[in-house]
């Protein structure tokens, strides 16, 4: 008999109880190489209201474009102390904020470089399974040729690119429904 992957269920409203211990909104400690960025945003529901009980998880490469993972076999340096993982719950307004470094480009399909990006999971009460998306960095030269962005209809690509709101400060929102609905990805799940 073939075994099937276990069914996803909602994270519910009380996840902080079990998941808070691993919260991390500062992904890159002192001494980690790379351009520092402060990212803030909100998770917004179909009524335009902030979601106060969402959880945002971030996964990213280091400034050299290397993931701290055994399956990344690129000949690029690791950054000691940089895991590349963040876990940030939203506050009462649905807002989240975290600090990190801009990752370097990583290879995509057929070796084509991808523009620097964060991969993001969003969990919340009401979602039976997580949403997966990406946050790209504004002004990056590789945005124009990114193989994943190319799969998104041009009018919606901007939902995946953060906006500059200050020096080293970016804003990126997760809009669950409506005209500016964020692009979410299907990973075969």
């Amino acid at each position, binding site marked *: 008999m073939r075994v099937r*992957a276990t069914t*996803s*269920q909602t994270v519910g*409203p009380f996840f902080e109880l079990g998941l808070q211990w691993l919260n991390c909104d500062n992904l890159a400690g002192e001494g980690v190489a790379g351009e520092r960025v402060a990212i803030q945003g909100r998770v917004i529901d179909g009524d335009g209201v902030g979601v106060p009980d969402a959880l945002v998880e971030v996964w990213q490469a280091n400034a050299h474009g290397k993931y701290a*993972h055994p399956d990344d076999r690129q000949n690029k340096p690791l950054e000691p102390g940089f895991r590349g993982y963040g876990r940030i719950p939203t506050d009462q307004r649905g807002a989240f904020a975290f600090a990190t470094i801009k990752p370097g480009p990583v*290879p995509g399909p057929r070796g084509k470089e991808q523009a620097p990006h964060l991969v993001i999971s969003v969990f919340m009460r*009401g979602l039976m399974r997580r949403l997966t998306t990406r946050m790209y960095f504004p002004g990056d030269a590789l945005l124009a040729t990114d193989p994943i962005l190319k799969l998104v209809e041009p009018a919606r690509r901007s939902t995946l690119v953060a906006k500059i709101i200050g020096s080293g400060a970016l804003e990126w929102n997760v809009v669950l429904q409506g005209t500016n609905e964020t692009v979410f990805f299907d*990973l075969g799940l």
Partner: protein
Amino acid sequence: MALRPKQKAKKRRAKEPADSVQRHVVTGYRAVAVGTQPNHLHRPYVSSIKRSPTRPLVRIPYTLSEITGPTFDPKLVSNADCDLTRQHKAAPLGERIVVSGRVLDEGNRPLSNTLVEIWQANAAGRYQHEVDQHEAPLDPNFTGCGRAVTDSEGRYHFVTIRPGEYPWRNHHNAWRPAHIHFSIFGPAFATRLVTQMYFPGDPLLPFDPIFNCTADEKARRRLISVFDWDTTIPEHALGYRFDLILRGCEATPMEK
């Protein structure tokens, strides 16, 4: 059929320094079987209506970003973290149980060294969380939070108390069946799973919109733990077994 412009391809390759963009064979993860995972929108679960995406998801190929994921030092977790009955001065109220199982991939291979996080209500059906205002007592000896790292055989093991059922406001007279929340990372961003474990024979299961959001009946049934004599401790605690299956790689064959 268009012919590949061979020469051009050769030229391009020659231009690339070997180190700048390295070619890697990325093995993706197998798509899940139809009906075995819930849709985002499930109207009987009212909170999904304003929170689920309305546009179709965009299918993307697997890249290095999705086949990697965070790894954790097993030292992050202590032995006390997997015994929820010994986190306070005295034992919590309720029926002590052992919840254990394995984390496997779809080919039945154990996933070792992966982080398993759990959280749950106390025996009276109340969470140690400020948002939970259900009129049931908190237990000063029970937080309801545990974590473990799987061993070389993919095994995890918790001692806890059986959580109580509790009401919620989804619809008139709505009650959640007893459940324990599970969060597992697995080897990659692609394998991340958050789910809930239920108990055999719970009369509330047929009425719960969350449990029933998955179309496939067998898939739903796999969320129900199995009573297990092997892990039942005489004079002490009943054992429940709950295996978690994470998605398997495309390249690896399924076991018969």
